[in-house]
């Protein structure tokens, strides 16, 4: 099962390397989003807590622009039925999740580097806490966006519906991450942020379990 999931991931990875569709559009989107923020700020000094929030705004919208492709691409190429024949639903979900995870991590690392380079106010005082928050939130983001992408691929209108469906699901994750990021910028200790970290871990676990349980119903029709 694992080798099949990995093979599926490799297939996606290779086809991505050939077309570079998702990566290119993601990179451009990140650039556009950050420059829009920079232009709108202009010469103003913005408060530190705001930069933490805007950081997650950029991440959310970039994710919405790039991650919807996972299952839609199969549907467009007409390879859904073949996939249904050769692998079990959970294997397919694992493969797609792996690919989206890589994409999310790549995207968010680029955003974080660019963001800290371009915004003087974005100073992280508790670095390790931020890294932990970052990793945990990325997992949550990848899991939720993969399952919503699966729903979207089976629904009629593809592009516009994705952020609409994802936002309420991602809202708890984003709110907690924003809170944790502002904690990191103030420089709170690990112990004080333990509960918020636990919330994100719970979110990841709950969404992962639910996704695996519910993916069968989306995939088989």
């Amino acid at each position, binding site marked *: 099962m694992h080798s099949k999931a990995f093979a599926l991931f490799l297939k996606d990875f290779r086809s991505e390397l050939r077309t570079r569709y998702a990566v290119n559009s993601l990179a451009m989107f990140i650039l556009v989003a950050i420059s829009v923020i920079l232009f709108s700020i202009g010469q103003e000094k913005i408060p530190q807590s705001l930069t933490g929030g805007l950081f997650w705004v950029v991440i959310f919208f970039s994710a919405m622009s790039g991650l919807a492709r996972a299952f839609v691409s199969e549907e467009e190429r007409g390879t859904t039925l073949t996939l249904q024949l050769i692998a079990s639903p959970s294997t397919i979900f694992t493969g797609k999740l792996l690919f989206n995870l890589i994409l999310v991590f790549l995207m968010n690392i680029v955003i974080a580097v660019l963001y800290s380079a371009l915004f003087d106010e974005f100073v992280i005082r508790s670095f390790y806490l931020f890294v932990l928050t970052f990793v945990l939130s990325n997992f949550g983001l990848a899991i939720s966006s993969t399952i919503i992408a699966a*729903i979207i691929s089976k*629904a009629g209108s593809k592009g516009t519906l994705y952020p609409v469906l994802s936002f*309420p699901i991602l*809202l708890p994750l984003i709110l907690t991450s924003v809170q944790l990021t502002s904690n990191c910028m103030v420089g709170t200790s690990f112990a004080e942020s333990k509960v*918020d970290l636990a919330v994100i871990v719970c979110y990841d676990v709950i*969404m992962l379990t639910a996704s695996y349980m*519910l993916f069968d119903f*989306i995939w088989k029709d």
Partner: protein
Amino acid sequence: MIWKTFLFLLLCFVSIAGISFPIVENPVHWYQYPMIKGLEENAKIIFFHVPTAWLTVVAFFMSTVYSIQYLRKKNLDDDAKSYTAAQLGIIFCILATVTGAIWAKFAWGSYWSWDPRQTSIFALLLIYGAWFALRSSIESEEKRASLSSVYSIIAFLTVPFFIFIMPRIMLGLHPGAESIEDGKVVQSASPVVDFKMNGNMLLIFFLSLIAFTILYFWMWRVGYKSLIYRDKILKQSSRG
């Protein structure tokens, strides 16, 4: 018929009693409400605001339960039940948001202040909106039923987070929320929280809750039955 008459009378009584009974400093007669500090005349909206908020949650929960039922049995009747519950749920959700905003304007000074519960009901509104957007985008009945069931289950899983994390992130104004006093976070002791409803107020409050709940279930039954009959008729006409 008896039920409908009973419900009609109950709702009439609740509306009249809720709106017209006077609020006085020291209630003597059975029809007088006590003056609650910090709420004054605004207190009366509680008879209509709380039931709508309660039914929003009930409808959301029922919609999810019938979604699970649909995924288990693949019976389209369950989807009709879930759909009707959500339809009523979004109506009550809008009502709760609007009555809450009006109350907030007079009690807290602004229509919207991102109190934890305001944020939660906003998220619920978003979930309902997304759910209906998803449903309207799918043509096939079975596909629509199973996809929207999956989405409503996933959306339901986020609810505990809202209940749990919201109060941590923002300070509350609703009764029972934490607030800052003298620089320390305490269980709020503001007048809004401390209010004591006397016997008759509690009675009207619970009567209103019961009346609205019966109204909801009645509307829900009518709604899902008409959906099921419509599907039957459509199937028959397409066959013959």
